[in-house]
């Protein structure tokens, strides 16, 4: 009847081009340095949101602990930068020069073993990718092999986020505690605090994001993506067809974790510090919200969702801090009740048809994944 969709059809390419044009041309031209840096910060959340589209939208696995992976990436990068900032001459007023200042305040006299690898940049980058993947693998294989799913998975990951926060805050000699790791200066000798560095980092961030988007689309359009959707709809039937459901779930959870970690590392670079306030329950849920607002089944939607919610947050909280929480709360409820497919759904149901009509550009391909998705989403499974 219809063939599986090929990787990146015309519509995807168009969407990618539009996204790239907005991020690479429109924003840098229109926004001043300060606002552009803010957009850069928002886009680091978009990494998490893209991961959640795969994991939650397609796989049906809602993780409320993505902040943990974001933090693993962010802390990894922060540890490297902190070690570089804590050279012996920078820290000579300490009782033990050459270790980060917060360790000195906590009477540590030498660098703990797990900080050692973060002296090297390549090793740091490797660990930023591997540690979250490993954690996701451990959590995922423990739970998915035992067929934990849906609500239980969400609550357990939420508890993990809570534990991680308490641990990081409690072990302040090793982690910087509630203050986080602050006062980061240079990346391999390159001062990341200057405006020009921030400008360059923005483009690095966008390039990485576009790469992640392409990879996510590749996964979505591969056989794996189809199996994920099938699993979400009828897990048992997929299992009876001879697929190892758990392995697919573990894989997509790891992937989402790694995406988040990349976002976290870029966050540290652009914001200049990492703190446990990005680990806990609240930020983890907020990241889910970005995805939901953008459209849980749309990779591009997730990015626009992260941007839109954060823009709204910044501008509303500048003018009406009291209204902001009411607005955010109302937005969540509206997204769930009225627009379960978020911005992407609104676009597809209202904007796209009128554009199509205007350009008489009728989609000839009946296997257009967008329409499939719309149908699937309108009947989200009961559990």
């Amino acid at each position, binding site marked *: 009847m219809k063939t599986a969709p090929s990787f990146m059809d015309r519509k995807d390419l168009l969407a990618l081009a539009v996204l790239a044009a907005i991020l690479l041309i429109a924003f840098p031209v229109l926004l001043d340095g300060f606002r552009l840096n803010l957009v850069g910060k928002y886009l680091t959340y978009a990494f998490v949101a893209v991961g959640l589209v795969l994991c939650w939208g397609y796989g049906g696995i*809602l993780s*409320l602990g993505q902040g943990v992976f974001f933090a693993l990436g962010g802390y990894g990068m922060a540890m490297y930068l902190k070690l570089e900032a804590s050279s012996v001459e920078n820290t000579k007023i300490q009782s033990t020069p050459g270790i980060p200042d917060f360790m000195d305040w906590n009477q540590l006299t030498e660098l703990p073993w797990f900080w050692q690898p973060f002296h090297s940049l390549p090793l740091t980058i490797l660990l930023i990718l591997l540690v979250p993947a490993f954690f996701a693998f451990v*959590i995922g294989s*423990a*739970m998915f092999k*035992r*067929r*934990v799913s*849906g*609500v*239980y998975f*969400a*609550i*357990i990951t*939420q*508890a*993990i986020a*809570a*534990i991680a926060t*308490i*641990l990081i*805050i*409690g072990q302040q000699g090793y982690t910087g505690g509630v203050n986080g790791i602050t006062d980061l200066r240079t990346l391999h000798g390159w001062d990341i605090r200057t405006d020009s560095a921030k400008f360059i980092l923005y483009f690095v961030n966008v390039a990485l994001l576009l790469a992640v988007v392409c990879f996510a689309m590749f996964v979505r359009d591969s056989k794996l993506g189809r199996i994920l959707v099938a699993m979400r709809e009828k897990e048992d039937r997929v299992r009876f067809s001879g697929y190892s459901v758990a392995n697919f779930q573990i894989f997509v959870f790891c992937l989402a974790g790694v995406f988040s970690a990349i976002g976290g590392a870029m966050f540290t670079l652009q914001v200049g510090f990492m703190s446990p306030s990005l680990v806990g*329950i*609240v930020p983890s*849920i907020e990241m*889910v*919200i970005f995805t*939901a607002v953008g459209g849980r089944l749309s990779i591009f939607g997730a990015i626009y969702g992260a941007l839109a919610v954060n823009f709204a947050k910044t501008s509303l909280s500048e003018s009406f801090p*009291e209204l902001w*929480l*009411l607005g*955010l*709360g*109302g*937005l*969540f*409820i509206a*997204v*769930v*009740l009225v627009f*379960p497919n978020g911005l992407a759904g609104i676009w597809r149901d209202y904007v796209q048809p009128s554009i199509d009509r205007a350009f008489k550009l009728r989609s000839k391909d009946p296997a257009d994944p967008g329409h499939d998705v719309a149908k699937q989403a309108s009947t*989200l499974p*009961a*559990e």
Partner: protein
Amino acid sequence: MFGDYSLGDLGAIFAMQGFAGLILFSVYLLMALGLAIIFGQMGVINMAHGEFMILGAYVTWLTSVFFSEHLPSLFGIYFFVAMALAFCASGALGMLIEWTLIRRLYKRPLDTLLATWGLSLILQQTYRSVFGPREVGVTLPDWMMGSLPVTDVIEVQINGLFVMGLTVLITTAVFIMIFRSRFGQQVRAVVQNRQMAGAVGIDTEKVDRLTFGLGCGIAGVAGSAFTMIGSTGPTAGQLYIVDTFLIVVFGGAASLFGTIASAFSISQAQSTLEFFLSGSMAKVITLLTVVGILMLRPQGLFTLKVRR
């Protein structure tokens, strides 16, 4: 650390520590009961549970202010009035929320999580606008503070006894209501098979609304009782949410017995660990153990066989 103490002292300490564990158990159970009904029986993830508790706390505060200004002679018993009002207020709000929001989401449990999280933000901001961003201090009648000396060393906290008594009372009431009453029969029928329950003439919508209201009402009573031991502020509700969910999940979501067992084991573990280790580590170890066990036994301690 025990070398310097006589056997009598040690015995007294262990007795008091056991009592502390029991208080913690009551607190946990009281927190979790409302959620166990809503989450366990209805499958709704109510992230605004803490905010319903805080509503109860604010109602208690308002009642205490009212009594001290208008009925100072009856101040000693205002707390009972406050708890009844807290139950009504939280229950009514719960039913309203069920009617406007939750009933549209029964088929999408994960979405109830998002929607109720949004609700919790709205409630927090509402409390902040109405009652101010600062904490309010709830004045308790004198007879509720202090302790009863049992021996020279052992003292029993009155408010601890009060919370324990309240927990026993509410738990018994919930059990009778769920397992012995006609309403409970209907609730269980709806849980086990919604369509069949509807087919035999149960008004499932009404049952849902009352169940949700009941859960929220119990949360309100818990919040009211917690003014004795905790703080009352716009964001205080968030403190309870993780513990509460873990207790319910650890017990096996659909089992009320499980909730009791899990509240008991978690509270004992935590209070014992807190005695031997420092507070932060005790919390981390308890939570890690619970999560570890849940990974190995995801269905929780007790499970109810339900045809899905």
